[in-house]
């Protein structure tokens, strides 16, 4: 059953990469085969948690031994404006006896206990490798628990060993399609209801965008899943338009919502001034096409004009400071091109970007923007990055937390632009935040100090000079 689901996800027609593949390639799926001893990155369970855990009022219960939750909980910056239940880590903490005798009864008791104690609107149950191997049927337990307890209990069948984080994102999307979306009707609907998919409100980014939607008159009916509430996610099928923020990860959800409920979707980004404006324009145009009042477009243009002039004015002071500063950009997918335009707008020079997680479309887009000479690295080794930085080929590296030490150990400024970051970079205000952070780190006085040789490294002449 799980195999069917994975195969289905691999067949995704909404995915451009997939469309270009032969039938045989498709069957192999989009998970690159991992090389033992030289692999990095999260597993499918990790990917599923990333997508679903931001649903803040639900309980998220991990069915597995302690490693899956004990080593990983409380490590993401997804923010909630209300319920904080999603930050509580629940796990069945499977023991040796559960591995031998099966963990299904324990799982049911765990669901029951947390429903009694916390009364969440729903419980998400995550399958992991060990119970998948021993054959715990979490779907059956969830179904039974849902009937007994009168609450939605959603099985998320995405054990780590089936593949990468990206596959886990999609399997989480499948769980939403199968068990959640379409199960709750909104109290009322409006012609401007939208659903945003793939936005996780990291560092509160959604809150830099939502006020603009409110002002234009667009109602955010449902966000999957940043600052999410279970009921809102379950109402997503009543949206008029869907926006896909991270197209690769959840393309299956957007496409199937179109197929099932006739909701058109588009791909957009909140990063960078022009991308942000494009997103607002596309969203309003599509809403109007589906019957929303035409005045929506004027209001959007008004907001865009005001915000753009404001943001350019606010970015002006950075331009001379950023003149000639070279950036190495290491991030995946959509961000690889949307960040490029955002940073160049602020006067920075982008040396190149990694395209490890980007689609062919993403790559084409960068090529169109930047020309053939622009570096697109598919698989750059940490050692090579270190060398580039140590040789003073860049002034700052921007990447995810795991690669920060490549830059810091080379004594080159570094900025976190991935999930663990503490600052919000989305929307018009976000790009100003980003430039402020870049400027803060570039102009920090430590760089000159830490590159000084130690007293025992400097020659005798400099010692004499210092003494005089």
């Amino acid at each position, binding site marked *: 059953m799980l195999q069917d689901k994975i195969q289905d996800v691999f067949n995704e027609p909404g995915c451009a990469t997939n469309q270009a593949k032969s039938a045989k390639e498709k069957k192999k799926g989009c998970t690159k085969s991992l090389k033992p001893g030289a*692999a990095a990155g*999260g597993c499918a369970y990790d990917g599923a948690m990333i997508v679903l855990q931001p649903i803040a009022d639900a309980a998220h219960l991990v069915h597995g031994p302690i490693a899956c939750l004990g080593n990983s909980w409380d490590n993401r910056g997804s923010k909630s404006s209300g319920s904080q239940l999603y930050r509580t880590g629940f796990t069945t903490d499977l023991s*040796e006896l559960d591995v031998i005798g099966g963990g299904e009864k324990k799982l049911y*008791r765990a669901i029951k206990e947390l429903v009694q104690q916390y009364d969440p609107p729903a419980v998400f149950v995550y399958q992991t490798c*060990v119970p998948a191997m021993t054959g715990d049927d979490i779907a059956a337990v969830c179904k039974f628990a849902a009937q007994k307890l009168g609450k939605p209990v959603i099985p998320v069948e995405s054990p780590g060993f089936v593949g990468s984080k990206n596959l886990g994102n999609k399997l989480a999307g499948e769980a939403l399609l199968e068990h959640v979306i379409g199960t709750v009707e909104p109290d009322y609907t409006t012609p401007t209801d939208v659903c945003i998919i793939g936005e996780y409100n990291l560092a509160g980014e959604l809150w830099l965008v939502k006020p603009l939607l409110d002002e234009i008159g667009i109602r955010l009916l449902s966000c999957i899943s940043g600052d999410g509430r279970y009921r809102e996610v379950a109402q997503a099928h009543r949206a008029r338009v869907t926006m896909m923020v991270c197209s690769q990860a959840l393309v299956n959800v957007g496409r199937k919502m179109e197929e099932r409920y006739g909701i058109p979707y588009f791909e957009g980004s909140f990063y960078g001034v022009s991308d942000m404006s494009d997103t607002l324009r596309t969203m309003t145009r599509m809403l109007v096409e589906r019957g929303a009042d035409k005045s929506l477009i004027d209001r959007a243009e008004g907001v865009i004009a005001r915000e753009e002039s404001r943001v350019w004015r606010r970015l002006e002071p950075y331009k001379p400071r950023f003149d000639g500063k070279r950036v190495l950009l290491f991030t995946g997918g959509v961000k690889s091109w949307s960040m490029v335009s955002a940073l160049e707008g602020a006067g920075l020079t982008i040396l190149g970007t990694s395209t490890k997680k980007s689609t062919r479309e993403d790559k084409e887009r960068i090529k169109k923007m930047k020309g053939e000479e622009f570096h697109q690295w598919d698989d750059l080794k940490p050692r090579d990055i270190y060398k580039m930085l140590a040789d003073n080929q860049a002034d700052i590296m921007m990447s995810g937390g795991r690669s920060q030490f490549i830059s810091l150990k080379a004594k080159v400024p570094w900025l976190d632009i991935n999930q663990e970051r503490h600052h919000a970079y989305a929307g018009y205000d976000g790009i100003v935040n980003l430039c402020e952070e870049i400027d803060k780190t570039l102009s920090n006085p430590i760089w000159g100090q830490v590159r000084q040789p130690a007293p025992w490294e400097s020659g005798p002449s400099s010692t004499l000079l210092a003494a005089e």
Partner: protein
Amino acid sequence: MSHIQRFPSAAKAASTNPLKMSQPLGAALAYLGIDRCLPLFHGSQGCTAFGLVLLVRHFREAIPLQTTAMDQVATILGGYDNLEQAIRTIVERNKPAMIGVATTGVTETKGEDMGGQYTLFRQRNPDMADTALVFANTPDFAGGFEDGFAAAVTAMVERLVEPSPVRIPTQVNVLAGCHLSPGDVEELRDIIEGFGLSPIFLPDLSLSMAGRQPADFTATSLGGVTVDQIRAMGASAATIVVGEHMRVAGNALELKTDVPSHFFNRLTGLEATDKLVRLLTELSGKPAPARLRRQRESLVDAMLDGHFFYSRKRIAVALEPDLLYAVSGFLADMGAEVIAAVSPTQSPVLERLKAATIMVGDHSDVETLARDADLIVSNSHGRQGAARIGVPLHRMGLPLFDRLGAGLRVQVGYRGTRELLCDIGNLFLAREMDHEHGHESHDHGESHGCGGGSCGCNAV
């Protein structure tokens, strides 16, 4: 009478806000204290990714950690091929001195025979005989972080240490448990070297995890005890075993080499440190150096100054077993009352703890037990619960992701005990000041607070 509540068999089916971390993670930390080592998890790549992120957040250091990347098929058919391929790839790419393998829930559920796989690997790969290989069985579904650390140290002792016909009278082994931070190990080195002795720490996190500046990019651990040094442990005059979870490794070492071992259940506290100093005096035949004498005097003084704030304070402690034992013991030494001692896993030290409630539990248990406590001592994960019940949190253990210098803190020896005494004492002192002056002037920075006149000042 204290009692031990056992979890989860009777209490709860779901662990809520876990205190426990997995065995392979503990094993990885132990391997990171070996020079030019690359720890390798035999399991799905997610196991490695989570462990990596946790250690990076705690130490703020690059963490070398690899995976055999077991997928569904390999899991069912057996993982030897992945293991061999992983080791070969690592040796070819990174040329480590040692690869430390830790199994995971995935490979242990299948029941991979690691002893057999070691032999098979060595037979099939004679070209890699120069690379030390250590395998430890560390299933995720049994034990926890401390057990995994212990398993890896025991595995290294068994695989690498050799008996020696000679004795080097000034060479001392230290089996340093995971409750010792890199800073603690550095402090112990100072103390031991002060007696003219040369310690070999297994593992030695002070050389690898205390903030390094590499000359080039390395994919292996940078610093730590070398494989040759581990092999030479058989020539030492004595072994100092720190922590209950190091006892099995200590016994294995003694059995293999006849080096007599001396067991310490903790090195935090005045009397605990006195015991160590007595042993070092005996082993070296030298008197304690002046610096150590000054440090003892300073600790005694800090105890006199600080005890006012500790007396009958009600404290809940939730840490890995041996650290739990050390900290609870220190707090009791200072006159505080440990109302709850929560451990993530079972351990023999729990029987020896002195606390009103001793249990194997999680952060949600701490939240329940600490409602009327004056302080919680736990890792950074404790902050959510502590905030909910309005009790201050002193951060110790691992992970500490919301503090700088997590790996550098010192809480052993006279100096480390004094640091800990002042850190926790200051929390009480700050609270007393807040309460005393809370009504009149909240934002009067200069308002004097002396904690009940015990500072000897004239302020009323």
